[in-house]
């Protein structure tokens, strides 16, 4: 501790202060609070840290073993994208085949179909599901009655708590030939459509159900961000003659911009992994031409047909695109807007 400087000049005026610090240091488990973290750990060697805090380190054992086995071992397991895996053989594969499996899917026409399906579905989801919660949060924010606001929030959060199996079940029932959607179509004089047998309808249905399920819950972080905006800004703007729309445009939206950027980066990162479970539950072979995405294709060829190495190569490709997207979105956002995840 750098007490010597200021304490020495003060001399006998404050004899108690260094004493307190000394006691605190002797008490092995106690670290004085004003000491910053960096100071604290820089001085300790690992041996000393382990001896002093061994009990604290025992808390880490089980979680670290867990992370190692269930998170990092599968990452290493990606090596089988480059090695031929045989059931019953080594879990890291048996022989090196280089980029064989990558070439296999790049030369596969079916792969490109699912690749573009993924990009289109992911792009539509991002384009529609990202801005809507912001709009809804702004609308909610304009409600005068707190009770009404709570009421709308409670209802709009509900779908978020449903299992994807339930959501898929509801979607299938509503879009059935005699379901509600077709009743509306017929009420307007149209003919009933077999939605789940028509490839051209899948994207609309998927994105609509995604909106239904996520929009309400998506407002939550924006509403939290709205509470942090200084109300004096609004007062000043009103005195300057800004109307509601101008206040929203010049104060509210810039105020929630950091939240918007963070969520946008996160959304971009999961762009390639479009709701795998929901797509898997909703699709059927009749609509594969639009409803088959990389992850469901991977499930079918990798797990169901047991082509493990081929499937892993596709999965690795998908994960790397996701990682590159997150990193670049974050870098761009940091440079342009000044908000970033890290």
């Amino acid at each position: 501790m750098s007490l010597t400087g200021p304490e020495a000049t003060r001399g006998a005026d404050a004899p108690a202060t260094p004493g307190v610090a000394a006691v605190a240091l002797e008490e092995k488990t106690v670290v004085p609070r004003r000491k910053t973290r960096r100071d604290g750990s820089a001085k300790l060697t690992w041996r000393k840290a382990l001896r002093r805090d061994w009990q604290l380190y025992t808390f880490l054992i089980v979680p670290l073993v867990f992370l190692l086995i269930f998170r990092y071992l599968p990452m290493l397991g990606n090596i089988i994208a480059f090695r031929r895996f045989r059931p019953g053989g080594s879990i890291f594969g048996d022989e090196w085949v280089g980029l064989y499996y990558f070439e296999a899917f790049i030369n596969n026409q079916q792969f490109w179909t699912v690749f573009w399906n993924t990009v289109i579905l992911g792009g539509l989801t991002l384009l529609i599901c990202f801005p809507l919660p912001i709009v809804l949060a702004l609308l909610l924010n304009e409600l005068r009655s707190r009770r009404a606001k709570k009421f709308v929030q409670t209802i709009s959060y509900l779908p978020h708590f449903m299992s994807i199996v339930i959501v898929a079940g509801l979607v299938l029932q509503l879009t059935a030939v005699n379901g509600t959607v077709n009743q509306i179509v017929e009420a307007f004089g149209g003919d009933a459509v077999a939605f789940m047998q028509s490839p051209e309808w899948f994207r609309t249905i998927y994105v609509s159900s995604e909106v239904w399920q996520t929009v309400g819950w998506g407002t939550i972080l924006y509403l939290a961000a709205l509470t942090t905006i200084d109300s004096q800004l609004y007062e000043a703007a009103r005195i300057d003659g800004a109307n509601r729309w101008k206040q929203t445009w010049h104060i509210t939206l810039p105020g929630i911009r950091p939240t918007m950027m963070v969520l946008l980066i996160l959304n971009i990162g999961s762009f390639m992994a479009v709701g795998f479970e929901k797509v898997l539950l909703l699709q059927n072979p009749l609509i594969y031409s639009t409803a088959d995405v990389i992850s469901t294709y991977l499930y079918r060829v990798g797990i169901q047909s047991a082509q493990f190495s081929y499937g892993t190569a596709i999965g690795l490709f998908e994960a790397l695109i996701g990682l590159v997207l997150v990193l670049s979105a974050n870098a761009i956002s940091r440079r342009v807007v000044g908000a970033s995840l890290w």
Partner: protein
Amino acid sequence: MTDPLTRTPDIAEVRPEGGSLKDTTGYRVFRVVNVVILTLVCAVTLYPFLNLIAKAFSSEGFIAAGEVNLIPRGFNTATFAAVMSDPLFWTNYRNTFVYTVLGTVIAMAITTTYAYAISRPRLKGRTFFVGIAVFTMFFSGGLIPNYILVANFLGWRNSMWAIVVPGALSVFNLLVMKSFFENFPVELEEAASIDGLSTYGVFARIVLPLSKAVIATMTLFYAVSLWNSWFSAFLYLDDKNLFPVTVYLRNLIAAATGTEAVTGGAGGDAVQIGANIQSVTMLLTVLPIICFYPFIQKFFVSGVMLGSVKG
């Protein structure tokens, strides 16, 4: 001690007091339109649930004719009796319950201890221990390596461990807990350790009892996601008697829509075969969530808020 989790965030507070100055006509029109829009949002959100309930209490004929919307037609509760008398349904329902409880306990044990350790400033190597968890948020091993690990390497095919263990650490939950523990008054722990409590003692007798709010929140987070999960069970379990109720339901729907074995012209009407049974099963599956919903929602909201404050 102020408890950030029980405090309901004051969202209404931010609304600028536009009323003090005179509202323009345009703004008044907007407010009416706004109320209409939000009412529509509520209606659209609720409709599928109300429709589900109506179908569950209707008779199959009316559903097939497309005559059930919000009000049950041909009121019947026999389907409830039929679904509930299926022994497989009850076995699967009980499995869901067991997986949820067991999985939550395991997840909470790992998350709480890890979050506490990495929240202590005196822990050397803290940045590293946080970093290796956060990295897994952005890059993961992928479906097949995970599958090989669980099914081949650990041999957990047809074992409930495949359901309750691999998902036991959510990094988001970990970070929320960590920031909660970081805000913990250090004086309390200092005082306790001066009085002779070991780190274990401080954790068990001081930290845990004072963290009931965050523990309850995280327990709910894990329990809801385990209750709703289906994919790991679908992936690793073949034995019908081990399925959770979500997989039971999924198989029911898949059988009705013929997604399992569509060869070409699956008739659209197949969807409605057993729509009544499907609705009843769906309703029974979501029942616990609906019952606890007001409670769950409050906790989730404050938990997410707490996580977002940290950023």
